C-alpha cells in the first residue's frame, strides 16, 4: 500500500497542486490571488501532462544520428532510481526493429508507473490504472512519432546540423529511448493558453481596479449592491 502511494508520487504532486489551486480560487476574495490560484491549478495540469509523456529512462525526442549523448541523463533523472533503469534496459534489449521499439515505447508510456512491471511491460500484471488495452494495434501513430514527427521537431528546435531523417534513418536512433514528445507539445499549447488566460484575467483585474478602486471581491460586491439599491430606489 505504502509502495503503491510512493510509486505515484508525481501524481500526488499533481493532485496536491490542483487542490491547492482550486482552494485558492474559491476561498480568496482578492482577484489577483484568485488568478494565482487559477495559475497553480493549470500548472498542476502541465505537470500531469509532462508525467504522462515521460518515458522512464527516455531522452528528449531528438534524432541524434545513431548515438546518444548527455541529454539522456538530464531526462532520466526525472524519474531516476533502479526501477527506471531496469525499464530502460528491458527496452533496450527488446528494441530490435522499428516496430518493436515503438511498441515498447508505448508500453512504457502506459506502464511507466506500474509497480514491479519492469520485466513485462507488454503483458501481465497491470493494475487497473495501468491497464493496457488488449489487442492494441501497433499503430502508425507511434511509427509516425519516430519517423515523421521527430525530424519535424528537430528542424523546429533549430538543430540544423542534424540531417533530415527519413523512415530508414530512424533505425539508427532506435537504440535510443525517447520520451513521448506529443504531450509535451500539447502542454506547450496549453501553457500558451494559460498565459493568455492569465493576461486577460490580469488586465480585467486592472480594469476592475480602475472602475471600482479595489480588487477585493467583498468590496466590489458591496459597491454593486449599493448600485443595485440606487437603481431600485430610482
Amino acid at each position, binding site marked *: 500500500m505504502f509502495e503503491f502511494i510512493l510509486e505515484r508520487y508525481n501524481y500526488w504532486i499533481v493532485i496536491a497542486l490542483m487542490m491547492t489551486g482550486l482552494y485558492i480560487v474559491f476561498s480568496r476574495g482578492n482577484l489577483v490571488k484568485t488568478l494565482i490560484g487559477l495559475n497553480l491549478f493549470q500548472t498542476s495540469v502541465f505537470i500531469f501532462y509532462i508525467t504522462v509523456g515521460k518515458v522512464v529512462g527516455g531522452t528528449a525526442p531528438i534524432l541524434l544520428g545513431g548515438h546518444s549523448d548527455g541529454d539522456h541523463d538530464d531526462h532520466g533523472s526525472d524519474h531516476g532510481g533502479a526501477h527506471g533503469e531496469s525499464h530502460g534496459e528491458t527496452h533496450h534489449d527488446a528494441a530490435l526493429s522499428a516496430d518493436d521499439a515503438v511498441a515498447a515505447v508505448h508500453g512504457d508510456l502506459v506502464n511507466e508507473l506500474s509497480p514491479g512491471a519492469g520485466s513485462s511491460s507488454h503483458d501481465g500484471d497491470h493494475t487497473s490504472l495501468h491497464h493496457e488495452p488488449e489487442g492494441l494495434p501497433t499503430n502508425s501513430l507511434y511509427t509516425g512519432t519516430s519517423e515523421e514527427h521527430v525530424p519535424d521537431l528537430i528542424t523546429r528546435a533549430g538543430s540544423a546540423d542534424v540531417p533530415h531523417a527519413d523512415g530508414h534513418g530512424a533505425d539508427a536512433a532506435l537504440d535510443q529511448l525517447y520520451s513521448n514528445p506529443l504531450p509535451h507539445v500539447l502542454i506547450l499549447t496549453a501553457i500558451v493558453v494559460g498565459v493568455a488566460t492569465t493576461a486577460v484575467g490580469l488586465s480585467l483585474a486592472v480594469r476592475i481596479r480602475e472602475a471600482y478602486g479595489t480588487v477585493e471581491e467583498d468590496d*466590489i460586491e458591496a459597491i454593486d449592491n449599493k448600485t443595485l439599491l440606487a437603481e431600485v430606489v430610482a
Partner: protein
Amino acid sequence: MLLDDLPVLPVIVPLIAAPVCLLFPNNRVPGIFASVVAAVSAILAAMLLTDVATNGPANYDLGGWAAPLGIVYRVDIAGALVMTLVATMAALTIPYAIRGIEKDIAPSQVSAFFAMFLICFAGLIGVVATGDAFNVFVFLEISSLSTYTLVAMGAKRDRRALTAAFTYLVLGTIGATFFVIGLGLLYQVTGTLNMLDIHERLVGQDNRVVRAAFAFIFTGLALKLAMFPLHQWLPNAYTFAPSAVTAFLASTATKVAIYAMLRFLFTVFGFQFGFMDVAFGMFLLLGMVGMFVASLIAVFRDDVKTVFAYSSVAQIGYMLLGISFATPEGVGAALVYVVNHAVTKAALFMAIGAVVYSIGSQKMPAFRGLAKRMPVTAGALIVSGLALVGVPMTAGFISKWVLIRAAFEATLPIPSLFLVLFIVSTTLLAVGYVGRLVWEMTLQEPEGQIEVKPVPLAMMVPMLIVAFLTFYLGVNADGLVSLSEAAARELLNTGLGTGGAN
C-alpha cells in the same frame, strides 16, 4: 478545389480576417469587413452542410498529415448543422453590432471588438469542425478568451461587465482545465488524440482512468455549456455584455459546448459503461431541476436581459433532457432544440438591444408601453417571446414537440408521461416571464416622455430576419427535423453502435 477545402475554410477565413480587422480605423469599416467575412463563412458552412448531407462526412487533413497522426477536420451532419447555425448567427449579429455597439463600447475599441468577435467566431466553428480532441480544447479556449474580453467591453455602459467577465473567466478556465485533464487521461489510455481513433481503442474499457477521464471531460463541458447548477457565470455575463455579444453568445457559445458534449459522449466514448448511465441520469435530473429553478428565477427578475439569461439556463435543461434519452430521436430533438433556441434567443436579445439603444435601459420599466413607442421591435420581441414559450407556428413549438415525441418513444427511468407533464408545467413558467414582458409592453402606458431614438436599419434588418426565422422554423420544420434526426443517427451509430443506449 474549393469543395475539398470546405471543412477548414469557415474556420480559416475569420481567423485570418481577425488581425486584419485590427488594421482598420475605429469607424464602421471593421464592422462591414467582419460582416462580409462572416457572410462568406456562413455561405461556406451552408455549402458544407448540403455537401455533408448528401455525400456523408467530409474529411480534411490539416497540413497534409493523415489521421490518426495529423490533426484532422471531420465534419458530419451534426457538425455541419451546428457550424451553419454558428456562422449564420455570426453573419446576422455582426452587421447588427455595427450600429448596436455604439452605446455599449468605447469608440476606441471598435476595431478590437470586431477582431475579437471574429476570433470568437472562428474558435466556435473550430470546435465544431475538428476531429481532434485536443484541438477542441484549443478552439474552445480561443473562443472563450475572446468571449471574456467581449463581455468585458460592456463596461462602458455598466462596470459590472468587468466582474461578470472575471467570474466567467475563472469558471470558464476551470471548466477548460477540467476538460484538458480528461483529455490527458484519455491520451494516457489510448495514446491518440484523434476522436475516432480514441473511440476505437477505448471501446469496452471500463477502468479507473477511463472513468476519471470521462468525469473530468463531462464536468468541464458541463461548466462550459452552463448545465444547472454550473451556470453561475452565465446570467451576469449575458446581462452586462454588449447586446450584440449577448445575442451571439446566447445563440452559439453554449450550443457549441453542447455539441462538444454530444461529440464526446457519443463519438469519443460512445459505449456502454457505468459512468455513461450516470451522465445520462445527471442530464435528466439536473436538466429537470434546471428547467424548473431557472425558469422560476427568471419570473422574478427585473432586468429583462437577466430574465432571458436565466431562461437560457432553463432551456439548456430541455436540450440535456433530449440527450439523456440517448436515442436517435432524443438526440435529434436536442439538436432541433439547439437550433431553434439559438434563433429564438438571438431574436430576443437583438430586440432587447434595440430597446437599450433607443431608450437606454434594459429594466422592465423601460419596456412599458413599448408597443406604442417602438411597434416593430415590440412585435419582434412578442414573436420571439412566443417562440420561447412554444406557441404553435413558432420554432419553440417544434422543438418541444419533437422533444416530447422522443420522450414518449424512449425508455426512461421515470414515466414518460410524467416527464411530458413536467415539460408542460415548466412551459407555464415560461408563459409567466414572457407574459410579464408582453403585458408591460402592450398593456401598460409608457412612463414619462423619454426621447426614443429610432432604431437604425442596420439593427432592424438582422433583428427582423431572425424574428422571421423563428416563425419560419415553426412553420416549415420538416427540413430541420429530418436533418437533425439524420445527424443524431449518425452520431449514435459511430458511437454507441446500437442506435440507442438504454
